[in-house]
């Protein structure tokens, strides 16, 4: 199955992708962990940008949205909605709106 993913602009630049979305091909089950694993395999420069290398956890200011719901605090092993798994909707990887300098 072709899974669609949307990356923040800074990560698109880092991965050298010009389109707004990227895609990876995966078999079921489609989970956040497996989508990120596949993205990092396809675009190695994304390593450490979405998940901390040491803990494997989502970086604090990264959010995961799917089908208009916030999946950031769901288990990364929970199957994503069917619309993401069949490519009708993307998994959105978002840089949180978070003040800063």
């Amino acid at each position, binding site marked *: 199955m072709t899974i669609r993913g949307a990356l*923040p602009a*800074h*990560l698109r630049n*880092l991965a050298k992708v010009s389109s707004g979305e990227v895609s990876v091909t995966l078999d079921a089950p489609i989970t956040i962990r497996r989508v990120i694993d596949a993205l990092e395999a396809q675009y190695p*420069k994304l*390593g*450490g*940008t*979405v998940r*901390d*290398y*040491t803990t494997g956890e989502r*970086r604090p*200011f*990264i959010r995961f949205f799917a089908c208009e719901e916030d999946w950031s605090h769901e288990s990364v092993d929970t199957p994503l909605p069917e619309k993401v798994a069949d490519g009708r909707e993307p998994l959105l990887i978002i*840089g*949180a709106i*978070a003040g*800063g*300098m």
Partner: protein
Amino acid sequence: MSKVRVLVGTRKGAFVLEADGKRKNWEVNGPFFGGWELYHLKGSPADPNRIYASQSSGWFGQQIQRSNDGGKTWEAVNNKFVYDGVPGTHQWYDGTPHPWEFKRVWHLEPSLTDPDTLYAGVEDAALFKSTDGGQSWNELAGLRGHGSGPHWSPGAGGMGLHTIILDPSDPNRIYIAISAAGTFRTDDGGVTWKPVNRGLVSEFLPDKTAEVGHCVHHVAMHPARPGVLFMQKHWDVMRSDDAGENWREVSGNLPTDFGFVIDVHAHEPETLYVVPIKSDGEHYPPDGKLRVYRSRTGGNEWEPLANGLPQADCYVNVLRDAMSVDQLDECGVYFGTTGGQVYCSSDAGDTWEPIVRDLPAVLSVEVQTLP
């Protein structure tokens, strides 16, 4: 005619400034990596076209960028900084144990002889080394492991390893400094380390002369005299004539001995530069006047250098890695401010001119002198 290339790291990207030896007409290139924090960029002394850059972001973590063409194009290399073994804990601001967590690379120090070898000083404080141009990183864990690590604590800006000095006369000798742990030295290429802080006095410590815990802001060395070190501490400007074994204060007549930067003239090992900052609670120059202070006597006797610098209503800071000198016959001195100015003096500090005025806050300035 020789050229100079100034590598500027800012809060929102990197800039490369180039001029001929007159240092009057500047070409400004950048921003590179716009929107990211560039804590530090530095070129290889062995191959000036090889430049490394530390690029980081609160959102997306750490990247290391490498250029092979003098900063025109860049490629991301390995960003995996993993502490050796179980990292353990250091002291948190409130004195409680806190797990060691990698946050960012503060300083990159390329080898003096090999373009593919470089060191990275990171937060939480540790020293990493790459021998393959940044394609892989390994911690020199003897530094954190030497025993005092659990007692180190962060300064206000984090617990960063910010200074790395390679001794040109002894490839096994390296000095590093950490806020707020102090200065350390290895004499065996980074396997074992010892704190070298005797003579430092820090009022904020329960034991003011403790072996570790001092908030060292920056250390500088002249390559012709590698046993002589100069330090800008949180408060106090210090000097050691025995490779850090003993330090003595040389603040002398400075208007305030708080500050961040310190550097040494390229050809005069007893000529020093600092930028006094009013206090640790007020990170700006005294009286709204931006002045570099120069000592031609290795400390203690200082003269203000103000010609060309703003002398009214100036409230910028100059951060620890934001001063550098070039190697031209008439030594050039450069520094950047949190207000986005980069100043150049092409006459050893007598007069100053801005190269640029409106960059994002400047985090680091390094200069390369090119043939």
